[in-house]
């Protein structure tokens, strides 16, 4: 599979570049109370956050690595060698691209972020290592009362909303990596959409890791007030380093009565990144939280977006696409916690394993005995491309009581040699045939992505498949 390796590098080309940047603030390697004090001092944070971080550090140190169920590759993360905070200073992100320092701006320009913003976005935040370099919202959207800012600014400027929900959907001690994030978090978005406001265009965040031996720990909190609607998209890239890079985010969503939040991720980290992310949404009465999650990059991703349906008739949905290329492990899935009557959830997961890639699906569905009229539908389909490819499925479904329903379907398929021959007989090369098959496999899910992302996704799949044959 030596061919595959070179092709994968071409695939990563879009994000695989790096310009030198001078960092004014560097917390050094390793994480301890001094590191936390350094981060708090640089960011000028209030005491309650300093205490919150220190409590989280204790929990992080106490909690064992979850290798009794998760990949042992986690043991290859050397926490003492990671740098936990790197920034250029001037903490307030810029509101125009002209103000963004040249060395950082050219990175985002090369990634096409300002162009996308002009074309179809309501607001953009661009994070470079630990801090946002740019954050802006279209004037019209701001006038509706929508708040879109970095989490550091939010906790200082809007503590009345921020503090109410921060750490409430995902408690610090939820898992080892949520504790790590709570201790070291920096950057990420805060969004508040007032009652009844429907944000017509997506808000987007772009996360860029530029430094080696670095950990990015952004923290995002999105609150859609009663009847509000918002779509948030995130993208991410990093240059490829020989050493491991860590990305460990926490994302909390709160959809109040009748609100709708759609959260779209296209994850294309370079394949030296450990991507260990906790994402969960809370859906109140008649509210809807939908995660559209696409994982193409990283060395190891562990991510199981969840929805806690706390109000009657709340809906939760996870649409997940994972592409595990040579040497990659995409360990993804969904968690659906039904906590009120007549709540419904839907999980559709499709994974593709190429070369020695491994895709794992883990799903948790919980409907307790005392509830009535709850429904879950789970579909998970895996496609294996090469004989060395691997897929595993670990569904954990607990449905109690008589008035609830659950449906689970799973399939594993392969692109057969007859299918490839058939397509070749029509004039497509083997790689084109493979690529078309794979695109067909995920087609129904890709259609749920905004146009600009689905085109990008198709292109990434094409490039990945070129390397999978021969």
């Amino acid at each position: 599979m030596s061919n595959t390796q070179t092709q994968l590098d071409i695939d990563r080309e879009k994000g695989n570049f790096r310009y030198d940047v001078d960092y004014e603030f560097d917390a050094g390697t390793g994480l301890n109370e001094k590191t936390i004090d350094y981060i708090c001092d640089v960011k000028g944070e209030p005491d309650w956050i300093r205490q919150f971080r220190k409590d989280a550090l204790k929990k992080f140190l106490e909690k064992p690595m979850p290798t009794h169920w998760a990949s042992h590759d986690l043991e290859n993360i050397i926490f003492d060698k990671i740098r936990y905070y790197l920034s250029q200073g001037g903490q307030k992100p810029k509101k125009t691209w002209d103000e963004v320092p040249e060395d950082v701006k050219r990175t985002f320009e090369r990634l096409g972020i300002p162009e996308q913003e002009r074309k179809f976005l309501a607001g953009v935040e661009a994070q470079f290592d630990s801090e946002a370099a740019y954050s802006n919202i279209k004037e019209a959207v701001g006038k509706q009362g929508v708040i879109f800012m970095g989490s550091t600014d939010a906790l200082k400027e809007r503590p009345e909303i921020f503090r109410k929900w921060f750490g409430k959907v995902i408690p610090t001690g939820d898992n080892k990596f949520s504790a790590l994030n709570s201790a070291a978090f920096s950057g990420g978005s805060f969004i508040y959409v007032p009652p009844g406001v429907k944000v017509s265009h997506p808000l987007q965040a772009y996360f860029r890791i530029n430094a080696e031996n670095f950990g990015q720990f952004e923290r995002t909190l999105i609150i859609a007030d009663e009847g509000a609607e918002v779509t948030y998209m995130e993208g991410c890239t990093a240059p490829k380093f020989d050493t491991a890079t860590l990305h460990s985010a926490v994302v909390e969503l709160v959809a109040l009565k009748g609100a709708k939040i759609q959260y779209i991720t296209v994850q294309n980290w370079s394949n030296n990144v450990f991507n260990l992310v906790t994402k969960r949404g809370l859906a109140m009465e008649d509210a809807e939280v939908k995660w559209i999650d696409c994982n193409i990059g990283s060395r190891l991703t562990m991510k199981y977006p969840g929805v806690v349906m706390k109000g009657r008739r709340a809906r939760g949905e996870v649409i997940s696409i994972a592409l595990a290329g040579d040497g990659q492990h995409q360990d993804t899935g969904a968690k659906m916690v039904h906590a009120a009557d007549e709540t419904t959830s839907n999980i559709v997961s499709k994974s593709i394993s190429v070369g020695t890639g491994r895709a794992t699906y883990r799903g948790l569905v919980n409907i307790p005995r005392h509830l009535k009229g709850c429904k879950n539908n789970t579909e998970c389909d895996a496609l294996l491309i090469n004989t060395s490819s691997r897929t595993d499925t670990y569904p954990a479904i607990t449905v109690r009581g008589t008035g609830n329903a659950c449906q689970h379907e799973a399939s594993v398929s392969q692109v057969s040699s007859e299918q490839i021959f058939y397509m070749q007989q029509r004039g497509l090369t083997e790689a084109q045939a493979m690529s078309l098959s794979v695109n067909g496999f995920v087609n129904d899910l890709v259609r749920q992505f905004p146009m600009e992302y689905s085109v990008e996704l198709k292109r990434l799949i094409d490039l990945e498949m070129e390397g999978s044959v021969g």
Partner: protein
Amino acid sequence: MKHLKIDNLHVSIGDREILRGLSLDLPTGQVHAIMGPNGSGKSTLAKVIAGHPDYTVTSGDILFDGESILVMEPDARARQGIFLAFQYPSEIPGVTIANFLRAALQARLPEGEELEATEYYAKLYEKMDLLEMPRNFTSRAVNEGFSGGEKKRCEILQMAMLQPTFALLDETDSGLDIDALKIVSHGVNSLRGPETGMLVITHYQRLLNYIVPDFVHVMINGRIVESGTKELALKLEAEGYDWATEPEAEAVGA
């Protein structure tokens, strides 16, 4: 005029020899039928011409206008102008007929050239009308959940769109009722012409009432044992294959 020439072809799958010195000359402008009992190697011949990787050519040659195509990948042969209408077409889940055919036509264009979408759809709809296919057919995934008749019609639609120099029709009549057979035959006949050569493989004479061949070959045990005009097909219909099998048995015994 172009020629597809099969020259003393020997083909094996694993240790088993299936084609044993088969020769055939198919020029453009003609329709040849190959008839024979089950297991005589008819489908193997079609797949080998198309370049199926399971088969090994042990000796002999396949020449497209004098040039051997044996070293060519299946997709290169297809782009050269060889089309196989499959007996059992594969399903391609999630890929619509419109997208599939567009990709196939795009693959025939020089690098950097884009297929013109309006012309493409105009042609696609014209050919679908010919085959009495409803318009919504284009948005269905290739062969997924198709009836036998729909699959065969879809094969002929692809042939009509790709306009091959040599078309190989493998048991195109199998699984078709009489109405579907008429529609499919009408589609095939409309593609006949001086620029196209066709090899129609069938077990039954019935298809040849609708697609009337210029020549008929009888294939037994991996070899052509008898060639003639369309009357030969009628003889087979009346007398079966036994009369043709006898000399073959002697030949093997000798």
